[in-house]
């Protein structure tokens, strides 16, 4: 370190003291760091939907559009509910339930798919009956990132703003997650 550099740092220390560290900490609360500004390589995003997670906010669309990734919208009809209905109701009623659920799912997938495509994203859709928690965690392994609704699976309360199922999925994920 040359004389000028050490002189400057001595004078800086005497004039500023520890205030610069405080200023940096305060700015750090709302400015992105260099590392945070680098958009990670995300090529595929899993976006699970169900009867509880029926919409996506504009902020999520903005975030997803930053990645230029393929978004897979996946609607899962709860197999456990379907199985219970099969055991307790007649076949026609059960089929009616499944048909309505799938129709709702299709409409939801189409609506969100259109919205994302309008923002320039490539979208794939999928609908099936399955175990929401296990299937989402298993599918997530094939994606670079997951965007999960806090209401996924339902059951959020006044004291807990995130549903128990969404929380459990987050605990088991090994990829980055955006919770909305």
């Amino acid at each position, binding site marked *: 370190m040359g004389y000028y550099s050490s002189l*400057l740092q001595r004078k*800086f220390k*005497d*004039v*500023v*003291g520890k205030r*610069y560290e405080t200023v940096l900490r305060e700015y750090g609360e*709302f*400015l992105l760091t260099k590392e945070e*500004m680098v958009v990670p390589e995300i090529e595929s995003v899993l976006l699970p939907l169900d009867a509880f997670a029926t919409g996506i906010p504009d902020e999520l669309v903005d975030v997803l559009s930053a990645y230029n990734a393929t978004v897979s919208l996946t609607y899962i009809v709860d197999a456990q509910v379907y199985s219970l209905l099969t055991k307790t109701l007649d076949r026609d009623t059960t089929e009616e339930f499944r048909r309505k659920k799938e129709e709702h799912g299709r409409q939801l997938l189409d609506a969100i798919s259109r919205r994302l495509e309008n923002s320039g994203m490539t979208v794939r859709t999928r609908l099936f009956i399955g175990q929401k928690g296990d299937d989402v965690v298993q599918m997530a392994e094939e994606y670079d990132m997951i965007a999960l609704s806090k209401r996924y699976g339902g059951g959020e309360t006044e004291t807990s703003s995130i549903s128990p199922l969404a929380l459990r999925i987050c605990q088991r994920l090994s990829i980055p997650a955006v919770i909305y």
Partner: protein
Amino acid sequence: MNGVALIAIVVFLLTYILIIDERIHRAVAAMAGAAVVVFLGIVPWDSLLEHLDLGTIFLLMGMMIIVNTARNSGLFEYIAIRTAKFAKGSPILILVFFMLVTAVVSAFLDNVTTVLLLTPMLLYVASLMKLNPIPFLVAEIFASNIGGAATLIGDPPNIMIASSAGLSFNEFILNLGPIAAVDMVILVGLMYLLYGRTMKVTPEERQVLVKTLNGLDERAAIRDMALFRKSVIVILFVVFLFFIHDDIGAILHTVLPFVDPAMTLEPAEVALIGAALILFWSREAPEMIFEKVEWPALFFFGGLFVIVGALVETGVIAEIATFMISNVSTTGEAMIIITWFAAFASAIVDNIPLTAAMIPLIHDMSGTMDVYPLWWALSLGACLGGNGSAIAASANVVVLGIAEREGIAISFIDFLKLGMLVLVITVAVGLGILWMMYVV
């Protein structure tokens, strides 16, 4: 010259060398020098109290309390984000807006705090634009020093001059405000000429910048909305009081007949009233705010006053003044000498100790010539001389120190070349305006 005077000169020079080198904290160097002259009886207790300019020390203290309380609200970060957003992604506009905001804020609040809080935002915006941050940083330094020159409270040399010469806030605005305004226009033009061509971003980069900046929520920077509002109100009130501090008695007398119409408020009193008001109204913990008062800076000033007081007591200043008077026949000549000497000496010594030494000299010249214009000459030289080198003013040290910590090196010589160019142009223009006001 007797032995005592020689000791006072040696202490003065040694202290100034220590201040320039800063291996020992400047406050400690000044206090140690003061201790020597007090210990040797060169400055006895009664004189010490005379030489300690409490007007300067209390004004600085009051403004430090106001600024540090306001800082807790996130006011400066709010201003920084709003400024960045206002430029809508144009590098030139960012440069110009940050220069103007820095100049205006520096004119009314502490330069060090201003640049300390604006520089990280400037670096952030420059990194988003992928542009060389050096033009933005040097422009901020120059704007801070020029803006600070405009008012009584803008720069420590002005505070010291006003306190010692009894000059009012409005006199500073009338005499130095126009100079600062003209110099700012010149500086903007100069920065554009020097760096305008290099400040280009592609439409895509501009879009990313606008998107990122729009994503910043200036309201998120406000940590305490109630304190934010109170801070803005108190700062505006204090600035208003500064404008009327010389006529406060006449104004109050119209509503409160018992108030003496001849009463005035010293700038230091205004600052302390503002400090009391913001502490009382904000309910911020006073011990936390008092902790943030820059006591080393206040002791630095105190020490300097005593060391310079030793030169006064031993007649050294009077001898220099006599020499000056015998070689300078008119106020105009004295203006030229003081302005240029103060400007170039500030670039070497740091403008605060330089001003402390020059003030008693001008006082001593008052017997033979009109020194009123000389105060403006000193202020002009000392404040704008701060642009001359990397260590000439505190704002320079803060910005360049931050830059170095962030890996942006601006060499002493590189800064000197640009700083001297700005110094010569702005001081020449300022001196020209003063010349027209007082000599022609």
